[in-house]
Structure formats: structure tokens, C-alpha cells
């Protein structure tokens, strides 16, 4: 009886170890071998100034389907409030705040980051080929009593040629 119970105890401990090792390995593989990191680069506003990075809010198309989007997140709005991207393949976001902490999430996508004042958050998003239409962009961190007013719109337009090719 005693020894039979002990066997279950050891099996359980082995299972726990297997879960820890398995999950750690899978996260390391996807994170470091496949580059799927839940993170983004950051530099201080001062570093941005020194490096000559423009923080003028807006959308720039730097190549076919390659965009740079700069967003100023502030109590209680995003500037710009509407971003339109045509056939985007690769979008580099630079989001910064000059007042308090905000968050930026594009509902229905994997974009979900924190925006800390004094820092520029930079990350690259490759929109899925079938992403199309209007997306709600919202602030996900409490930033003051107008927090619920802080949202914006992302529009992805697809030309029919790309839809056919990318489908």
C-alpha cells in the first residue's frame, strides 16, 4: 500500500518536471530559433533625438508594402487617430508617450504592447495576408479618468491583385 502510493507520488513529480522542461524548451525554440518574441526594442526619447529618428506622428511608406508608423500616445488619444495601410507586408511601429503609461493593442491581431513615457517602443508587425478592413486600436493601460476615450482606427486596404496573389 505504502509503496504503491509512493509510486504515484513519483509519477506525479516526473509529470511536473516534464511539463516544466517541455514548456521551457518550446518557448525557447519559438523565441530564439524562430524569432517569436513577445517583446520590442526601446530607446529613450533622448537616444531617439541623438540618433536623428523622426518622431513626427504619421505613416510613411518606405518601400512597396513596407511602412513606418509613428504614433504619439497621450491622455486621451492616439495621434494619428486613423492609420490607413495599403497592402502592407511589413510595418515598423514607433510608439511613444510624453505623459503617462499607455498600452496599444490592435484588436484581432497579435499586436499588444506597453507604451512607457520617456521611451520609444519599436516593433515590427507582419500583418497576416488575409488581414483586411477596419481594426479597433485601443489603449490597454489605465492612463487617467479619460482612459475609456482613448482609441483609434487601423484600416488595411487590399488591392484585388494582392488578394488573388496572397490568397
Amino acid at each position, binding site marked *: 500500500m505504502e509503496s504503491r502510493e509512493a509510486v504515484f507520488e513519483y509519477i506525479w513529480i516526473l509529470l511536473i518536471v516534464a511539463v516544466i522542461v517541455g514548456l521551457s524548451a518550446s518557448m525557447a525554440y519559438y523565441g530564439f530559433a524562430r524569432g517569436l518574441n513577445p517583446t520590442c526594442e526601446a530607446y529613450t526619447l533622448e537616444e531617439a533625438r541623438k540618433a536623428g529618428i523622426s518622431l513626427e506622428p504619421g505613416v510613411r511608406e518606405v518601400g512597396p508594402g513596407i511602412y513606418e508608423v509613428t504614433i504619439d500616445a497621450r491622455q486621451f488619444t492616439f495621434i494619428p487617430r486613423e492609420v490607413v495601410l495599403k497592402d502592407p507586408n511589413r510595418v515598423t511601429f514607433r510608439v511613444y508617450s510624453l505623459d503617462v503609461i499607455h498600452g496599444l493593442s490592435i484588436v484581432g491581431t497579435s499586436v499588444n504592447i506597453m507604451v512607457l*513615457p*520617456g521611451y520609444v517602443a519599436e516593433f515590427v508587425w507582419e500583418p497576416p495576408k488575409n488581414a483586411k478592413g477596419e481594426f479597433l486600436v*485601443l489603449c490597454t*493601460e489605465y492612463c487617467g479618468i479619460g482612459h475609456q476615450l482613448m482609441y483609434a482606427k487601423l484600416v488595411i486596404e487590399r488591392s484585388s491583385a494582392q488578394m488573388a496573389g496572397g490568397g
Partner: protein
Amino acid sequence: METRVYSVKEDWYARITIAVAFIALLLGGVFGVLQVISRTPYWPNLYEYLAGLGIGGGASELYYRGLTAHGVLLAIVLTTFYIVGVSAYLTPRVLGVNIKPQTLNVSLAMMVIGTALAAIAIIFGWANVLYTFYLPLVASPLFYIGAALLILGSWVFAAGVFISYLEWRRANPGVAIPVTFFGIMTTFIVWIMATIPLVFIVLKNHVPASLLGWEADALESRLFFWWFGHALVYFWLLPAITIWYYYVPKALGVPLFSETMAKIAFMLFILASTPVGLHHQLVDPGINPYFKYLQTVLTLIVASPSMLTAFNIIATMERAGRAGGGDGLFGWLFKQPWRDPVFTGLILALITFGSGGITGIINASYQLNNVVHNTAWVVGHFHTTVGTAVVLTFMAYTYLLIRDLYGRNVILRNVSLAVPILWFVGMMIFSISYYTAGLAGSPRRTSIVTYGGSIPPEWVLPMQIAAIGAIIFSLGGLIFLVQFFGSLASGARIPLTQPTLVIMNPHKPGPATILDNIRLIIVAAIILNIIAYSGALIEIYYLRGLSPVPPIHP
């Protein structure tokens, strides 16, 4: 071995602190009901009515004020007061040693005054910063001073617990530490380790920002807050686990399945509760992914003692159930004292903790965090952990305390069983619905989520069902509170076995082993903290340098 101790002072302390805890549950619960109804799409915004009466600065201001009160009252006041109370009650009973009365007096005074100051700041709307108070949003200095007094008061109590341990150790050299007391010690060791980073950052950044308007760095402040914030979760959880280890074998009349396993679990909690805060900052810019990954692995490790605990408690139940004639694969489940609201409450809390544990691992999972960070999912998650595993355990165990500590019969005894059942069912509905809404991107914390009519339709139904679940578990809470305060006011008095209390060890105490070497594990935990955090600290302070910004009132 038989010792006689008189726990008059401890019981006095426990009666007051546990009553304060349930006053906090009452007030925090009222705000909870107000906000869950108000933020549900297409349901009435109750704060709109209150604002219409001329209270506060509009419906959303009142909402965030109430949300701050809800978080602080339930996550900080209820938990801390109940934990010191139940620890004061149990320590003389399981250890046979008193707690120094001076530490009880001083800690009670500090904690009550601190709570009152913070409560004033919150209620008057001078601290609409939510319970995480991220800089550069600042509250009135009263809020920080109050919170600091509350925490320092709990440190004084912790000192009392540690002194009792040393006294006991001197009188019982070479004897194994009783498991229940091991749990209490673990709770306060984790609490001290958790609150050191918090006290440091509040003194360095929050207080100067609030008093003098000094600039502070947001990333640095968040890092120290979460160094505290995750261990806070274990401060809540450890006493609940201790109560499971203490009461479940007692109710079943069998020894705990494995005391060794229980102590290993507590050791792992001391080791890995604190160096894991970065899993709350996985989507923060400015922290190297390797440091985040390291703490993700440590988070998986700190999940393991919870799995050991679940096994240990359920194995104890199975052993008792089989001894009672339950056979087959599940027969033993029907031989449990399910009619006992204390037992049922603890086991339903344990089951809910399973759901909270799995969603917790998902939260902390490096890549998956992206999907759930700051969504309603997280709200579902912590209502299963602190909101049920902890609070339901505290409520259920209080049925015993009403009798054994307050010396009163429980009023409306027949409905006691409804409390854990309503809480469990309501919380399942609430949390699963919030998981669903969160996966669709519905945010946490936001007062109104309609976004000028552009609310995604898939948020609506889960949020409405969640609100119904919340009303169901609140009903359970209301019944409990009526019973608690009603029993104290008008329950029939029963003579207490106090002040003479006979302590008998249920079995001969074994010799101390490596598992009773607490000093060793504390040193290991400190080293692990240094390893886990030094990279991120070097990056923030030296490689990049801080970027302070001025404080702003919300």
C-alpha cells in the same frame, strides 16, 4: 508532549483583524458589483446615476475611484488583515508558543491607522491610481503613507512570528517544524522578501513624486512594483494552502498524505516566489528577451509546488475515502464530508485554483502573454486565484472561527453550504466568460468598452454572462457577510475552551531534517533573485540609462 498556552492576546488580535478583513470584503464587494454592472455593454451604468446625484467628477471618475477602492480593499486590506489574524490564531495553537504582545499591539495600531489614511485618500478621489499605482500617475501622499504604515505594521507582526519560532526552536532543538507553522513562516518570509523592492521604490520614486513633484522613471518603477507584485500573489495564496494542509486532514481524521511533500512545496515557494515579476512585463519595451525568458522558466518552477499541493490534498482525501469504504476509481469521492461547508469551501477553492493555475501559466508563457496581456482574461484569472482560491478559503474557514474564536453559534446555519456553492458556480461563469472576452481582445480596467459604437460584437455576450456570474457569487458573499456580522452581533454565545488550551502533537514529532533548514533556502532565494534581476537592472540603469518624466495627477 503537552504544553499549556493562553492565547488571550492572540485571539483578541485575530478577532479585530479578521473583522476588519470582512468589513473590507463588504465595501470592496459593493464596488465590485457596481463596476461589473456598469462596464457591461448595454447594461445600465450605475455610476451614471451616482454622478447624476452630484457625487464626484463624472461617471468614469467615480468608476476608477471605485475600482481603486475595490482593488486596494480586497487585494491588500482583506488579505493582509485576514492573514495576520489567522496566523495569530494558529501560531500558539500549532506551536505552543505565544506571540510577543508588544508586536501585536504595535502592528495592529499601524495597520489600522495606515488603512484609514489610505481609505480617506481613495474615498475622496485623491488616489485614482488603481491598486498598481503606476508612476507617473500619482496619488496624494496620504495614500502612500497609509499603504506604507499598513505594510510596516505587517512587518512588525512578521517579526513577532519569527521571534516565536526562535523561542520554540530553543525549547525544541532538533525537532521537525510542524507543517502548519511551516506554512505561516513561509508566508511571512515571502512577504518580507516581496515588500522590500516595493518599499524601496515607493521611497525612491513615488513619495518624492507625490510630495515634491520630482521626476521618476516609469520602467524602473514598474520593474520594482512587479518584483513585489507577483510575490504578493503568493503572500495571499500561502495562508490558504496552509489552511488546506491544516484543516483537510483534520476534517477527514487522517494524517496528511505527505508532510515531506508539503515542506518541499513550501521550500519551493520561498525559493521561486520573488524572482518572477518580469512575467508581468513580457510586453514592456526595454527589457531584453533573455531576461524575460529566464523569469518565465522560474515562473514554471514556482508553479510546481502548487501542483504538489493539489496532489497532496487530493491524495489525503482519497486515502480517507478508501478507508471509509469508498472503492473503485472514484468511489472515495462520495465518502467525503461534503455537507461540511468548511470542507466543501476549501475543496472548491482548491479546484478553482486549478483553473487559476493553468491560466496563470498561460499568462506567464513567453509568447502567449501577447494575446492576453491587459485583457479581461487577466481579470478572470485573478478572480480564480485570489478571488476564489484565497477568499473562498478564508470565508469557509471563518465558519469555524465564528465558533472557536468569536465564541458564537453561526446564525442561519442551514444556508452555509450555499455560500461555497454560489461562489464557486458564479466564479466559474464569471471567469470563463472573461477568459472568452479577453481572448477576443476586450480590455481590463476600462470603464466603458463601447468605444463610440465600434465595440467588437464578440465581446458583448461573454461580458453580459460574466456579469450574471458576478451577481451569483456576490450573492454567496452577501449571505456569508450576513452570517458573519449577524453571528457576531446576535449568535448564541458558546463557552470557549479559552483561555486554557491544550496542545498535543497528533503524532510524535520527528527529528528535524534538511527540510527544516529555513536559513539555507532563504540564502538560495536571495541568490536566485540576484541572478534573475541583475541583467534587467544593469540594462535599465547602465546600458540605457533612465528616462524620468514628471508626475501627473489622474
